[in-house]
């Protein structure tokens, strides 16, 4: 197996682009990643491109904006984990020796499909993602005494991290407070609007290649390597919800963490920053424990101590997370990669985590798959 590096990353800031074609969003992110890698599209051996919401073939058409070189292009879709899954396909192909330089692209215009209602109501339409995650929170409050303030503190942290990231969709002008988050309108009790990610449009990209190639092209810049990659789905256990938007048993994230720590040869104690699927604040709270960054039942104490804030023990969602940086769909997982690569290179500006040597990226897809990566600076 070849060792695999990330040579370049690029993003189009997530937000609302009513007058911009999705192909142009993809083009801007793709060109940014190529420029960051110091490559031309002619150097690219294969493309994995992902989107959730757009018409079939959108990804393949969008890639034409970068050039028509005859390169193999494969569309990947795995719900929220689409971008992460596309990165994993590129990783597998390079690791297996099939390709050297591969472009990974995520693109979506969620704003074009929200409001497009189905022809007939379904049984599942009553159960929105917000409701599902709210029930996670209710259960946690029942079992562990979690308070809405704990969730609000996570959300406020992510909003404020977003203010330090020029690529963040949400850019609060004033510091977001726990009180402010709690006072925002209720979506699904106990979750308020500010505890949830926004909808949006955007694109993100990465160039992966053999580690040896990255060493030749690095020009003195730190090299970021993919130390672990995992994709898993659910294992049946009693209490599984087969209908509605679900995030399967927490076990899926726990299993993913175990797998990537084994691959990387080290565990959470050697990881300095983490990005997770924080579509709702309760998720990030659960992932502190499921990914092994604190013991079961201790998340609330760690939140109160500020363990996961910038300057804390292990900062989470350093770029603002889904809650602030945004979650257009296909590109989201690659925004996590963009952030982690910048952090590991020491290029993350005001939100730089000191001495960042390893970062974890975790995404859930449709509640039914989990994709996780560990990136390291060698």
């Amino acid at each position, binding site marked *: 197996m070849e060792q695999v590096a990330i040579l370049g990353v690029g993003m189009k800031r997530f937000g609302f682009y009513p007058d911009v074609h999705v192909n142009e969003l993809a083009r801007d992110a793709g060109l940014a990643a190529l420029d960051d890698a110091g490559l031309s599209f002619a150097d690219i051996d294969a493309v994995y491109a992902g989107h959730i919401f757009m018409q079939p073939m959108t990804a393949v058409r969008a890639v034409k904006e970068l050039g028509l070189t005859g390169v193999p292009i494969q569309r990947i879709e795995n719900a929220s984990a689409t971008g992460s899954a596309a990165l994993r396909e590129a990783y597998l192909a390079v690791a297996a020796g099939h390709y050297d330089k591969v472009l990974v692209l995520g693109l979506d215009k969620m704003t074009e499909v929200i409001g497009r209602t189905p022809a007939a109501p379904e049984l599942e339409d009553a159960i929105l993602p917000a409701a599902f995650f709210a029930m996670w929170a209710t259960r946690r409050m029942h079992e562990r005494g979690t308070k809405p303030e704990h969730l609000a503190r996570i959300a406020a942290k992510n909003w404020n991290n977003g203010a330090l990231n020029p690529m963040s969709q949400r850019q609060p002008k004033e510091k977001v407070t726990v009180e402010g988050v709690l006072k925002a309108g*209720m979506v699904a009790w106990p979750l308020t609007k500010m505890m949830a990610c926004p909808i949006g449009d955007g694109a993100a990209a990465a160039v992966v290649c053999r580690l040896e190639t990255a060493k030749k092209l690095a020009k003195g810049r730190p090299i970021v390597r993919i130390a672990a990659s995992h994709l898993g789905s659910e294992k049946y256990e009693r*209490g599984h919800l087969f209908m*509605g938007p679900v995030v399967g048993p927490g076990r899926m994230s726990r299993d993913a963490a175990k797998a990537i720590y084994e691959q990387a040869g080290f565990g959470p104690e050697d990881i300095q920053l983490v990005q997770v699927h924080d579509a709702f604040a309760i998720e990030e709270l659960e992932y502190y424990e499921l990914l092994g960054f604190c013991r079961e039942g201790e998340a609330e104490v760690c939140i109160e101590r500020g363990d996961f804030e910038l300057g804390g023990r292990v900062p989470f969602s350093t770029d603002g997370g889904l809650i602030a940086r945004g979650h257009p769909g296909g590109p989201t997982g690659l925004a996590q990669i963009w952030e982690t690569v910048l952090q590991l290179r020491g290029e993350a500006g005001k939100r730089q985590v000191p001495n960042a040597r390893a970062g974890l990226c975790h995404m859930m897809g449709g509640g039914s798959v989990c994709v996780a990566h560990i990136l390291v600076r060698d």
Partner: protein
Amino acid sequence: MTDAKPRVPVKPGYYTVPDDPNATPEVICSRCTECGEYFFPRRLVCAKCLSRKTEETRVPARGTLYSYTFVHIPLFGSTKIEYAEGYGVGQIDLPEGPRIQLPLAGKREQFRVGQQVRGEISVMREQEDKDVVILRFRPVEA
């Protein structure tokens, strides 16, 4: 409301709509004849032991509330004023094993983790020729 109109589930195959409005509806499940596990909704292959020997079985709509929320948006597809302000949603553990996720009847303050709930058929949308109904659960008065 006219009582003569037929009551039709929003989607068939998930629960029964008894003629007697006071009767407890039934949830349509599958049961594995090899390992005994119950599933909702119905499925052919047992998710626990992978046997294909499952059979349809109906169980009364009642159970224990595992978790709940109150969604502050109107119920999708509903014409009833009752749902305009939002609606409760719960995860209910049936005593046979399956956990199901469906709307709750009542206000958020009435819901409690661990309480007993019972299913009822409620009109979600009145049409000229029929009433479209849903199954929802209501806390059982202690």
